[in-house]
């Protein structure tokens, strides 16, 4: 039953990915003009003469004069073979440009997700079980501040505190000596020592909202008859709460994988700028501004695929954790 459910879900994800890729491509082709018009405009601005014939030749070479659907098919055909095309701006294959940044983005997002869960789950449970206690009020207040503070502002404050009071270097994900060094254990250690600041910054608001969600959900479950049943069985309060109501109230936590993931990656753009993180956000923004369509397209496509995978993972986990879902 469970395997059947997972199989069906995975199969459904495939047509969905194609639909998403079509939309992604439509989006990046949507702005008027193409990379060459932007390119020409930049050249004209700096006083260079634009050779129309050369532009047309380029346009033909890149296939910009083809109808939309042909362009899409060429592109997606390439993507399926692992070729994301050439970045016009960087004059390099897109693949080379994005992998490391994508990997760092995903690492950062995963680390943030873990942090969010690790903090939100116990606090949420505590707040629900000790409703209206001093601790509950304390976390509620912190939570609202966390929700209401924009990430970039929080980043600035944290950077200020870290630099002025602790004198530590907080920008980027690596110290300068490891910046361009090949991957090694020492570099991973360096990454770990840097990653916590962006993790806290990015995770705060998600943590705050998850605490609220967990608290509200658990409060709904805490006085259900099955809890009384378990209590009458002689279970200890702690095991009782963890085994029954928490297990049922945890569903929205799992669902967050689906939406938190793309949100973390795209929402991290401003923070990434402020902290000058070598993640995908800044590069993507630049690509979009320059209408560097294959580079931007690759980012958008990967982000969409990540959210589909995120949804898939959360759906499967939900089915594992809640049998009612897989039987429906």
């Amino acid at each position, binding site marked *: 039953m469970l395997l059947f459910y997972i199989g069906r879900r995975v199969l459904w994800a495939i047509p969905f990915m194609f639909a998403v890729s079509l939309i992604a491509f439509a989006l990046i082709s949507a702005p008027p003009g193409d990379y060459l018009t932007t390119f020409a405009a930049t050249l004209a601005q700096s006083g260079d003469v634009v050779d129309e014939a050369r532009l047309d030749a380029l346009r033909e070479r890149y296939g910009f004069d083809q109808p939309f659907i042909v362009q899409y098919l060429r592109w997606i055909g390439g993507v399926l073979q692992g070729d994301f095309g050439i970045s016009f701006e960087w004059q390099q294959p897109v693949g080379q440009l994005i992998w490391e940044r994508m990997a760092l983005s995903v690492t950062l997002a995963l680390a943030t997700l873990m942090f969010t869960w690790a903090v939100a789950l116990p606090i949420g449970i505590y707040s629900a079980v000790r409703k209206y206690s001093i601790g509950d009020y304390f976390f509620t207040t912190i939570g609202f501040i966390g929700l209401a503070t924009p990430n970039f502002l929080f980043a600035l404050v944290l950077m200020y505190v870290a630099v002025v009071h602790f004198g530590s270097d907080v920008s980027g994900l690596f110290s300068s000596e490891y910046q361009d060094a090949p991957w090694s254990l020492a570099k991973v250690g360096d990454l770990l020592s840097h990653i916590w600041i962006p993790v806290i910054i990015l995770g705060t608001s998600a943590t705050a909202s998850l605490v609220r969600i967990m608290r509200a959900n658990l409060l709904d479950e805490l006085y259900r008859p*099955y809890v009384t049943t378990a209590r009458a*069985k002689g279970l200890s309060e702690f095991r009782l709460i963890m085994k029954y109501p928490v297990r049922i109230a945890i569903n929205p936590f799992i669902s967050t994988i689906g939406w938190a993931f793309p949100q973390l990656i795209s929402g991290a753009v401003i923070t990434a700028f402020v902290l000058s993180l070598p993640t995908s956000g800044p590069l993507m923004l630049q690509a979009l501004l320059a209408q560097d369509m294959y580079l931007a397209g690759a980012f958008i496509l990967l982000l969409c695929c990540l959210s589909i995978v995120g949804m898939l993972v959360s759906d499967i986990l939900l089915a594992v954790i809640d049998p*009612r879902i897989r039987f429906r």
Partner: protein
Amino acid sequence: MDGETMTSEWNTPVLELKNLTTEFVTKRGAFRAVDDVSLELHAGKTLCVVGESGSGKSVMSRSILQIVDPPGRVAGGQALLHRHRTARAGAGEETVDLLKLNPKSRAIRSLRGRDVAMIFQEPMSSLSPVHRIGDQVGEAIRLHEPVSKKDARERTFELLRKVEIPNPGKAIDQFPFEFSGGMRQRAMIAMALACNPTVLIADEPTTALDVTIQAEILDLIRSIQDDSDMAVLFITHDMGVVAEIADEIAVMRFGKVVETGDVYDIFERPQHYYTQRLLNSVRELDHPSERRLAMRKERPVGAPCLVSDNVRKVFGGSKSWFGTEVEGLVAVNDAELELRSGENLGIVGESGSGKTTLGRCLQRVHDVTAGRILYTDSSGLERDLAPLTENQLEQPWRDIRTVFQDPFSSLNPRMTIGQIIAEPLVVEGKLTGPQIRERVYELLELVGLPVSAYMRYPHAFSGGQRQRVSIARAIAPNPRIIIADEATSALDVSLRTQILDLLLDLQERLDLSFILISHDIAVIRYFCDRIAVMYRGRIVETGDTETVCNTPQHEYTQSLLSAVPVADPRARGQKQRVRYREAI
């Protein structure tokens, strides 16, 4: 179990409640839900605690194990568990006061589920939906006894077999939602029995179940009790169930025990007036209403006014993407039924039998899949309601009205009683504002509510009063037919006859015909001239109520009637129960 078995153990209770008091602390002060209750439970005996809703019986039972949800708390008294008088007896005398123990302490936890186990009312929600049956039952064993997972599983299997769950090997790995209500309650019982408790507290364990399943669960509890000498504290509001299983009875009202005694004493010589009233209203219900019989003599039943001609209702049947036929659920299967003018027709059946769906089809709130609904209006014109559109149904909808089951959720809490009753009149648009107000006053008086109710909100009224408001709303546009869907099921017994009498009263004054949909044979017997028995979407038997009740023809009707508990302890065990198995 009568006087003969009153041996020495009779005077040696295994669980004694002394002056138990439980309070609910609110901002407006403490409210005593259980007030100075003293009871005794004896090994192998069943003590039934009866009372109407709000009498504190359920809170009392939870106080024993100190599992009352906040803001409730045990304020005083003792609950003495005499462990030395049970099978678990050690060498010396051992008496534990359960109320002295900290509700979160290990000491009380080790007694919960082992010495004293509980079963609850809602088999649907009392089991965790995401844990397997075997896990939930086995947990009770593993909590109290040092057994391996494998042994616990084996014992769980045995327990499931003992409570007669078919195919326990499969059931052990199933989830509660794959079970029917009766099966879930069996699983609950298995869980309670896991450690052979000395005392079993059953809090309305059969109230949410159909009568045939109720009868089986009661049999099960009784047979287990015979085997194990367990003391049972059985909480119920149903005097029929009490007569069926009780050895002793305690009657509760407003948190206090007003009368206790032997089952025969209470049923035959009730002392307290409240007990007398409770018994009277039960006994009254089991017979045809005198009032109705008198009324029928004066005004005989007329010609059919609402006829269901082969009505069929299928839910959810459709063609799927690939052209394969998805089979729908046949809720009503070719129902043939007629309601005559000035008559009360009862539709009886268990949950899921399609009786409510049939009622909604007759009113044409639901579309029907096939068949005709022939309605004869006041001018004698017969029309088929089945193909009509919403606009064409305006007049029939004024003529055929519904009173719903739940008086708490069928009234909008943000509207005043006046607005609620006036709504159908406002929609009709025939009367002016002052005229509507006049009419609402008139209706309030008709249903026996004070005029002052006009400006008040539903929450200020009790269940019975709210049901009167529902009735007033139903009769506001001068209807001809009222469909009362379980209109008395949510009410306490003493209120049921009052509401039914009100309906009879209105019938006399306003010339109404009724369809009463109910699972409760007693209510139908009191109120209805004719009865239709539904089983799985089919009407299996129709006829004069008394004839059907006394000499049921269809096997299903026989099994249904034989399962209804009789409120007379002397009749216990005399009735042969018929089990109905549908021939496929």
